[in-house]
């Protein structure tokens, strides 16, 4: 965003903002949560006011050549005018984002996009988060708790280092089960194992939420389907505009095409064709891997030059 645009926003909405010094999308704090997972608070006053649980933003790091990537809004503070993003370093853009420091600015943030989570008093709700999926799950769990639901959380990761937000989940869940694939922390299991046990309980959960890698959501849905428990999943597909214009995010839902950006990002997981979605997610994988390598080498060289 150029200064001209910032000035325009300031003069148009200045009176509505709590802060007089609206200075683009500055990173106000940054933390590394695990080997490849980072979190920042970023100034985005208008988005922080409008945002509801389940929604996301699209960011890009410069105006000319940067790609646009969707990231879920993990939290927001309308008083401070900030939003919280959590991401995993997987491609070039997330690697670049991870190299930004406090005080740096993100060129473009647009949102909040997508539909908010459908919140209700369901009764007993089982919430399953895997890896980076714990980030978008947390605000939903908070909101569900506020609605008076009984929350059973299952959060998992490959290993202890990759597990994020355990403390936060512990604070708001009525029951928390932690799993790791290698047993380095919590129970040695995939999240589907305790999920199945909980589904067998009487009374069984009234509603399930599952957010994480596509493969995890797929298997969670296979479990809950057996027990006929309605299950919401939140999808994170490749997007460009995030407003329904490109159709790149489309999935097959109940045999019909749906756009994750405007019809989602949350869907009834029992109707999502996960196999096809996973293939679409990998459409540019080899190209992107190359770009990431190039970026890493470039950064490496920069570090050596210092």
């Amino acid at each position, binding site marked *: 965003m150029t200064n001209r645009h910032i000035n325009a926003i300031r003069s148009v909405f200045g009176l509505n903002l709590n802060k007089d010094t609206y200075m683009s999308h500055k990173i106000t704090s940054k933390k590394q949560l695990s080997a490849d997972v980072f979190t920042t608070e970023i100034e985005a006053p208008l988005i922080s006011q409008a945002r509801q649980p389940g929604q996301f933003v699209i960011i890009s790091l410069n105006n000319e050549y940067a790609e646009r990537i969707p990231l879920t809004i993990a939290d927001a503070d309308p008083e401070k005018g900030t939003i919280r993003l959590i991401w995993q370093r997987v491609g070039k853009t997330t690697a670049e984002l991870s190299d930004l420091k406090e005080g740096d600015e993100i060129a473009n943030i647009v949102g909040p996009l997508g539909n908010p989570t459908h919140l209700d008093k369901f009764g007993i709700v089982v919430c399953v988060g895997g890896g980076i999926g714990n980030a978008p799950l947390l605000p939903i769990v908070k909101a569900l708790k506020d609605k008076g639901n009984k929350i059973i959380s299952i959060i998992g990761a490959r290993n202890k280092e990759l597990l994020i937000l355990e403390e936060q989940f512990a604070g708001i869940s009525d029951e928390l089960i932690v799993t790791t694939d290698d047993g380095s922390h919590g129970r040695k299991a995939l999240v589907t194992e305790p999920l199945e046990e909980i589904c067998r309980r009487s009374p069984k959960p009234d509603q399930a939420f599952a957010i994480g890698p596509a493969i995890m959501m797929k298997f969670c849905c296979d479990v809950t389907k057996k027990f006929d428990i309605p299950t919401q999943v939140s999808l994170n597909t490749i997007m460009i505009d995030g407003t*329904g214009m490109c159709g790149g995010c489309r999935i097959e839902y109940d045999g019909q*095409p749906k756009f994750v950006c405007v019809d989602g990002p949350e869907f009834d997981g029992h109707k999502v064709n996960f196999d096809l979605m996973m293939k679409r997610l990998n459409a540019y994988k080899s190209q992107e891997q190359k770009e990431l390598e190039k970026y890493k080498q470039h950064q490496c060289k920069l570090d050596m030059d210092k």
Partner: protein
Amino acid sequence: MKMTDKERQELLKQLLEKQKAGTLTPAERYKIPPQDMPEQDSAVRITNVNEAATGYTETQARLEALRCLRCKNAPCVKGCPVRIRIRDFVVAVADGDYKEALSTIKENSLLPAVCGRVCPQENQCQLTCTVGRKFKDPTKAVSIGRLERFVADLDQNAESVPAVAAETGKKVAIIGSGPGGIVAAADTRRAGHDVTLFEAFHKTGGVMVYGIPEFRLPKAIVQKEIDTLTKMGVKIVCNFVVGKTRTIRQLLNEDGFDAVYIGVGAGLPNFMGIEGESLVGVYSANEYLTRANLMKAYDYGTGADTPIARSKKVAVVGGGNVAMDAARTALRLGAEKVYLVYRRTEKEMPARIEEVHHAKQEGIEFHILQSPKRIIGDENSSVTAIECLKFELGEPDDSGRRRPVPIEGSEFIIELDTVIIAIGNKPNPLISQTMPELKITKWGTIIVDEHTMETSVPNVYAGGDIVSGSATVILAMGQGRIAAAAINESLAKK
């Protein structure tokens, strides 16, 4: 007929003398050879993204303008959606008074450099042109669009900023920075209102920037129009999705806007609803063109971060301008073979004749009277082929075009790795969903009073594709202008 520059200059000299003496007859005007558009050689231009058509020389422009019969009733004007005084500007070109020509155009159209390039003239002004009728071919009419482009391009370096009236203190929000939004912003700002232009993307220009490729409409031309708005004092806010970042209600009730113009286009791509449309390698034309244009995916690996399929064999489905744009973009991205699959015949194609001509010249293979029945993928869900059905033309349908009827048992396979669906767009429901009181049609377009473009919600106006479905730049511009006039009138009373 090919002429050399020297021959053209000689001819122009003779004709101008006769014109001056008042002895140039209609018969002599008919004999002036229609001036071809100079263009980059097709073999060269498919290796770059620069403009395919390079524009008339001054001699060509004046020769072409002299073909105009100067009809008293000026039928060309009636063919123009915004009623540009075409005859008068063409006469000014013939006289060499390009300033006069430009100011005549600008009375009715703010974006001549754009419209001269992308208007479907053969269905508008050139369809009603007497010269074209005489030759029974609108492409042999006076090339009004090329003349419009010629005078507009002469002005590209000029620094003229329209005068702005004294500040009124009234606030106007324009949603969408496409052609309609640009015109509505300029016209309301000229009246002295405090105007903010909102854009959802990180760059302004709407479809002229993300959709229409550089080789047909250079981005610099659009940017110049945006820069003019900035100089006039229009505030521009990018990365702002009205309906999401803030609703129209909030703009009106909380942010102090007195009027809102919705010019968001019809951006939701249609798909065919056939098997295999979600396979890897199937794009909507919107996605393909946005990756290539806005995100500059042609530079992927050498700067740009947005990838795009590196295709060998591509099929584009559709027969409109967007289909031609997508097909020609695929060629420039290095595809070896590009098929254009269309279920009617070339005659029914909605694309501009010039785009069809350019596409063919560049080697796009036209498959008419065919349509995909399903898209076939491999074990990785990547596209490997399409199964097509052949069609024949039956009775005319609602659109007046003969209905394509499938020929039973005519299925055949085309092997390829990329499919681009370019069969139109429908209105984006983002705004209507967040404003239930806004009345829409069953197709999702916004209902307006056609004299003022005001919607069912007071002080909220709309125009362009979100009102008319998929239409043209010039129509969007015209509606932006009508809405701006109505906004100015309404605000003057408050």
